[in-house]
């Protein structure tokens, strides 16, 4: 089930941990939208006609767009790519708490948005200030209430743990608060120091202590246990949902489905190659508007690349590595190697396998990258 991703490359300010592509020059929003429409036209045949089932508008911060701009983008998309947004299985829109009101959310709903993903990150004021978020704790709370009262029943929130000063008790309280609000989907991430972020500089200049891995590991386990107790499934390492509320669009990334990414820095995948647009708003828009050209790079994926990607993403999900799928898509020698490679990992208690699939244990989830690397060909 192919999907479309639209990247809205603007934010009001930079969060300290963030290395996503965006710009704070909001005055360029209009020309970006024009460029996006040119890109849609250029890429209209990327996915098979009539196949698209999900749309995801992410960023950056999509909620800096006015409802009019959202409608404009959606109608261009429908006209150019011949898709029917209202009939898609999932249409997700990312919002930040400081941008939204009940009225705004109603307009999104009218435009066809079915699912909200709210960048809450924390219910603690000090955390929000530390991470240089643009919103307050009250706004976080209000955002969730507004989402519910404007009629969204499919709401996801993002939460971050492992923040310096965030106690285990506070963390569990954040999780339980989300549960009490009736949130159906939670993406929870450990704070990490990514290259080229404000946080990295802060750590380098010793303004912030190096992150405490022990804290993050404990809070991860608390997260898993607390949400399990409330009936959430950990269907991917960082993603939890009440039954039936998995994020369809994101899940497709892990199943090697096709997707078209629009906007600067967005990635697309068509089964055999991956391409990504230039991560620069001015060059992206300039090239599309002045020369009708999309600046992007392409990478052809080999069978080994595809295997490695499937292992890396699949192992993180509760469905694990589907042996039948692997049998059908990859050469036998890869599978034979896999069967040898899993033995020591099973002995360590990191993996469990049945005749159908290989999944991570709770302990294994703490080392998913290392494990994936060991199963690469």
């Amino acid at each position, binding site marked *: 089930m192919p999907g479309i*991703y639209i990247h809205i490359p603007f934010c009001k300010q930079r969060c300290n941990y963030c290395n996503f592509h965006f710009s704070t020059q909001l005055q360029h929003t209009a020309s970006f939208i024009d460029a996006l429409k040119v890109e849609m036209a250029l890429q209209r045949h990327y996915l098979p006609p009539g196949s698209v089932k999900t749309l995801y508008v992410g960023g950056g911060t999509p909620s800096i767009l006015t409802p009019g701009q959202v409608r404009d983008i959606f109608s261009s998309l429908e006209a150019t790519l011949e898709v029917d947004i209202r009939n898609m299985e999932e249409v997700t829109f990312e919002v930040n708490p400081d941008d939204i009101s009940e009225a705004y959310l109603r307009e999104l709903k009218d435009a066809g948005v079915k699912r909200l993903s709210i960048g809450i990150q924390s219910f603690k004021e000090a955390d929000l200030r530390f991470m240089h978020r643009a919103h307050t704790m009250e706004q976080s709370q209000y955002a969730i209430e507004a989402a519910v009262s404007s009629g969204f029943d499919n709401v996801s929130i993002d939460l971050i743990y492992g923040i310096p000063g965030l106690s285990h008790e506070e963390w569990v309280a954040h999780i339980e608060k989300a549960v009490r609000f009736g949130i159906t989907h939670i993406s929870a*991430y*450990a704070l*990490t120091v990514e290259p080229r972020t404000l946080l990295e500089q802060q750590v380098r200049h010793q303004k912030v202590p190096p992150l405490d*891995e*022990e804290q*993050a*590991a404990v809070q*991860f386990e608390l997260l898993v246990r607390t949400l399990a107790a409330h009936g959430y499934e950990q269907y*991917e*390492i*960082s993603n939890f949902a009440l039954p039936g509320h998995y994020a369809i669009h*994101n899940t497709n*990334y*892990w199943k090697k489905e096709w*997707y078209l*990414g629009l906007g600067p*820095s*967005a*990635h697309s*995948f068509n089964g055999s190659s*991956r391409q*990504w647009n230039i991560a620069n708003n001015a060059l992206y828009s300039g090239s599309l508007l002045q020369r009708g050209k999309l600046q992007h790079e392409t*990478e052809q994926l080999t069978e080994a*690349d595809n295997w*490695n*990607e499937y292992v*890396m*993403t699949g192992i*993180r999900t509760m469905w694990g590595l589907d042996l039948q799928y692997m049998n059908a898509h990859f050469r036998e020698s890869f599978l034979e190697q896999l069967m040898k490679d899993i033995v020591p990992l099973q002995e360590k208690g990191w993996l469990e396998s049945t005749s159908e699939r290989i999944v991570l244990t709770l302990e294994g*989830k*703490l*080392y*998913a*990258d*290392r494990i*994936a*690397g*060991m199963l*690469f060909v």
Partner: protein
Amino acid sequence: MKKIRNFCIIAHIDHGKSTLADRLLEHTKTISERDMQNQVLDDMDLEREKGITIKSKAIQITYNYKGEDYTYNLIDTPGHVDFSYEVSRALAACEGALLLVDASQGIQAQTISNLYLAIDNDLEIIPVINKVDMDGAMIPEVTDQIVDLIGCKPEDIILASGKSGIGIEDILQAIAERVPAPAGSPDLPTQALIFDSVFNPFRGIIVYFRVLNGSIRKGDKVKFINTGKEYEADEVGSLGLGLIPRKEILTGDVGYIITGIKNAREVKVGDTITLVSNPSTEAIRGFEDVKPMVFAGIFPVSSDDFEELRDCMEKLQLNDASLTFEPETSQALGFGFRCGFLGMLHMEIIQERLEREFNQTVITTVPNVSFHAYTTREKDVKIIVNNPSEMPEPSRLDRVEEPFIRAQIITLPDYIGNIMSLCLNKRGILVNQNYLTPTRVELIFEMPLAEIVFDFYDKLKSSTRGYASFDYHPLDYRLSDITKMDILLNGEQVDALSALIHRSRAHDFGRKLCEKLKELLPRQQFMIAIQAAIGAKIVARETISAMRKDVTAKCYGGDISRKRKLLEKQKEGKKRMRQIGSVEVPQEAFLAVLKLND
């Protein structure tokens, strides 16, 4: 014989020797422009990348001078201090040398050390200032330097550019006019000097020689005087761009001989070829059995691959006789080889050739020089120690000697201070300071070889902003306070990380090594203690905390490629890891000693 000219080009590295050689070949139509690859004389891949000439080659040029054809044999020489013996033998095969000096750099250390070798061999020197096309050319200054150095007249110096072709014709004429014709006699018993050999997978070893007296014909029974071995000359010929078979190579000329030898070790550069039928009893002087200067272990990453590695080492040795190796066992690394190299560059080349040409992934251990140890029991019996594990226990040890070298450094007067402190810090002794010209000073130090083999050259470059050049030659062995430093990982001694080191350095070295290992060892799920010890005494300690998690938070569309590549890279690195006890040790860690001051 009157129309033969044998010459070489001597120059400091990068002064444009290979480029000039190309131009000479092109100008004389030895190779057509179409065949012209840049720098035809350096034909190993590695050489081209590193931009140095590793193995000497020779090529014959026909040049028409005043209506008559002359045969020029151009003998190429290696340009790195690791290979100075080979240079000396190549020079011994010539009557003349083009002394090439970069117009913007002036005289450098190898210019001088090679010049001395050339003068030792009585070569006629034709001074050439090269790269005169460059903006930074300082022709008057460099002219003065050369005049001061060799005592020639300024008008003897040819101005040239291998790049733009200036002066090429002048050089070719000067060779005919100034380089003496060979002086040997066709009637004396045959003597031919071996100055190089190469391995050809189809023909075996091809030996390059220069006939001094007599001649060598196809079918002759020949004898190599120093090894005493006899062979039949299956083929002889001259060296064009390829091999050109001939019936006979006459007095004074340069050629090749193929005798079916399969192993490079049978052929010693500097040896003398004579005929069995009418042998010369005298070997040409200057023969040396080159000895390795630096020793290190080479181990297969997986111990199952030991036999395969042996095979590859043997093949490698077929065309690199200066590589020595013998089996070695390490508790940490299993079966491997203790190898001897001419220097660090040579070691690097061998490692790279193993990987590129033979597809072997290897772990190379900390290199060391060869020490002499004497025990209290037998005070006069020298034990050669090429491996820290061979050093006798302190309780049995009477004394240790370490090799010293004579280092020649040429620099600008401004940097004397920096160089003095660098060399004194490396236990060097200044023995001479000599102004070659008002702006070029030569410093001579006697130093332990151990102090210069590792990072000395890099340090020298950085403390002189590149304005220093360096050359060295072995001197002798001297009494020294050498001690063995061991490294323990979680209490377990890792023999492959042991090092032999001067006692005054031991503490500092141990501390730095532990710090470096802390950086290089990947974290594991348990704590790792790194300790440096001399005997039972721990002199330094570091710990690596346990890893609690190794998982990235997000993995959506945009992250997938980047993350895959990251993990693939880690996996590649893991292939070179060795499990020591419970600790995984990556290849770089074994060479940590080399990077201590990065």
